[in-house]
């Protein structure tokens, strides 16, 4: 038993960063042999833009997954948010802040509904959030055939295209949101309680944690992150886009990034740092394939293999720990 104690108490960094470095190294090698350049300025910028959009959604997703829940409505929240933002702005810089405020308020309300369905109504999170997602899809399909509204020029120039060296402003926004989420999990009571609720809701309740309230809050935060991703996409596209969320597969890819980052789907274990690693990994794979001009279907197959392999590795590790 004393042997167990002599092991380091600190956790090793998530393996996803090792995978990320390997992917970039191998990717660079293959792309170079192919006669391309992986780390050219345009490729790097585009990689970081992809990471920013997916990352904002995935950081929010991390919070609900750590709490033992799930949000599959995020893709529709993203689409809806681009529309709310762009239509409210209508190309007017003066309407910028009210439009962002309204977008976030709408997102938060959807998150609240998700959270209440999961906790108070005790509906399985998968079913509840898919249901809410379909509801939003109905509204979007019915109301919109194509792009609508016009994003305020200031937002397009700022969040959409401004960058510092190769790093877009949007990626810095992602880092800031991720840092805030990390801090919340590590240093606030809410964070501690959320992880406990994910680990064992009944145990948390018996320890005096208001499990439902904690999980509802996590759902609201998750939807807010998706809303923020919507604002960012509106800034890139210059308008609201009713299918940008689903076409970007933000629901499944955000969960994939969370799982790649080492967060347990069952909840109670994991964190935001790993998720950012997972997002960068997926974005890098994307960039490599784009450079190689690989067939889209083949790209999806490879992503599937990566995700399944990552989960298998995590599962094996968990088993070894348990035995």
């Amino acid at each position, binding site marked *: 038993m004393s042997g167990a104690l002599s092991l380091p108490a600190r956790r090793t960094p998530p393996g996803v960063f090792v995978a990320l470095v390997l992917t970039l190294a191998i990717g660079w090698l293959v792309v170079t042999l192919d006669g391309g350049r992986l780390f050219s300025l345009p490729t790097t910028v585009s990689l970081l833009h992809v990471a920013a959009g997916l990352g904002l959604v995935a950081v929010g997703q991390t919070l609900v997954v750590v709490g033992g829940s799930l949000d599959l409505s995020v893709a529709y929240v993203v689409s809806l948010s681009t529309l709310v933002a762009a239509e409210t702005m209508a190309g007017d810089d003066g309407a910028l802040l009210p439009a962002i405020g309204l977008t976030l308020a709408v997102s938060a309300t959807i998150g609240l509904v998700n959270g209440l369905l999961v906790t108070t109504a005790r509906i399985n999170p998968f079913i509840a959030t898919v249901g809410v997602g379909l509801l939003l899809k109905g509204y979007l399909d019915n109301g919109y055939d194509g792009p609508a509204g016009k994003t305020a020029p200031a937002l397009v120039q700022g969040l959409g295209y401004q960058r510092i060296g190769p790093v877009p402003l949007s990626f810095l926004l992602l880092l800031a949101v991720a840092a805030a989420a990390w801090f919340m999990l590590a240093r606030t009571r809410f964070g*501690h309680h959320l*992880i406990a609720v994910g680990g*064992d809701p009944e145990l948390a309740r018996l320890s005096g944690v208001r499990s439902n309230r904690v999980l509802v809050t996590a759902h609201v935060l998750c939807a807010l992150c998706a809303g923020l991703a919507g604002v960012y996409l509106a800034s890139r596209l210059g308008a609201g886009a009713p299918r940008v969320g689903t076409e970007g597969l933000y629901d499944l890819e955000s969960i994939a990034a969370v799982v790649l980052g080492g967060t347990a789907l069952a909840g109670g274990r994991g964190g935001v740092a790993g998720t950012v690693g997972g997002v960068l990994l997926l974005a890098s794979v994307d960039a490599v394939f784009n450079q190689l001009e690989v067939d889209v279907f083949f790209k999806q197959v490879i992503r599937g293999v990566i995700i399944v392999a990552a989960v298998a590795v995590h599962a094996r590790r968990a088993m070894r720990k348990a035995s």
Partner: protein
Amino acid sequence: MSGLLPSPLLALRGIGKSFLGVRVLDGVDLQVRPGEVHAVVGENGAGKSTLMKVVSGVHQPDEGTIEFAGAPRTFRSPREAQQAGIGTVYQELTLLPERTVAENVWLGREPLRRGLVDRRAMLGRTAELLASVGEGSLPPDTRVGRLGVAQQQVVEIVKALALDARLLIMDEPTAALADHEVGQLYALVRRLQEHGMGVLYVSHRLKEVFALSSRITVLKDGRAVTTLDTADTSADQLVRHMVGRELSSYYPDPAQPQELGPVRLTVRGGGNRKLRGIDLRLRAGEVLGVGGLQGSGRSALARALFGAAPFSTGQVTVDGAPVRLRSPRAAIRAGIAYVSEDRKGEGIVAGQSVLDNALLAGRAVRPGRLGRGARTARVRELLAAFELRAAGENQEIRFLSGGNQQKVVLARWLALAPRILLFDEPTRGIDVGAKSAIHDLVRRLARDGAAVLMVSSELPELLGMSDRIIVMRDGRIAGELAAGATEEDVVALAVGTEREAAG
């Protein structure tokens, strides 16, 4: 002397509690003094756990009063009891394996500094608490999942201390501990005692009870039979208080010597994670009873013989031929059937029909061996012979009573004409009428030449049904008893009051 005794920390008076009309606790009086380790002993089902749950606020008593620290209290939830100063270390540990010791200890009450969790204070105070119970070498930032069971228990206790608990309830705290860890727990309990904490200590193991407690309360059938001063009590006296009631039910006649057939099953040196050195012989025509406490290995033995949690060492023969029972499938092929103690979890498929449940094993293991129609006909015959009460064979089994569900499970196995039958608590949760029908059936199966092994925690059933009894303790066969043994004999073997050669 009695005038100098401190006033009690906890005083229970006339506690009564019923579940679904069954009286589980009846007028229980019990007092714990500060700094006292008060043991509660009794057979399975005597009401120990329910009593502990009443004190810890999980259950509310139907009658009676709880006085704690001089004031009458009612605890509507575990949280209220905790806040009053009653900590509980449950049988199953309640810690988050992915979180650190400190995070677990302070869950729900994390110390704050400027609105944020004060990690330094959390770690520091945890270290202090650990040091105060003599476990200062355990770093508070270790992940709980890395700790052994004994250390996790220390964390549970420290969690209770962090709540300023003045009374600690320990329910079978040594059940999951290795021998050397038990010694650590003793030292810890004594240290708590020196701090003036009262401890309610529930245990099956009389050795621990005598080593630790100052007084012992014996529960039997929901009543507090007596409270004894440990120093003036012998193990034999205690066992006599724990058992002793008339055999009121009827049991079928045991096997006559001429009815016993050849040896059907032998095990030599069988062992696995839960069992060690199992040697046994099971003859055609006999009912071999298996007694022992919960966790003693009696269910593990049945599961090993059925290949559900197989033996990893030793040899097994069936009808003289060596067999390897690596899976239930292999065991079924060898002619073994198993009726689990966990009917809901392992016995029935709740949402399927009576008929599908009865055909389950046959379809899985011997497809095509009997024609489809013949197999169904056989199952129908059996269900009719058992006088199954159901709306029809297509009714979902979950709507049946426990007794009728069990009949379906039995039909499933008997349809395979097994030669060896393993029953684990065959009458648990079954009403009295159906119980004796199952007892009769078990005996009839033996008469017809089957070899029966029956695990039971109900002593009257064990004594009434068995031709021979083996008693398990700590994964071994502690001893064998012939028919005509008494409840005291079984309990003595199960708790280990008779001196073991190994000490």
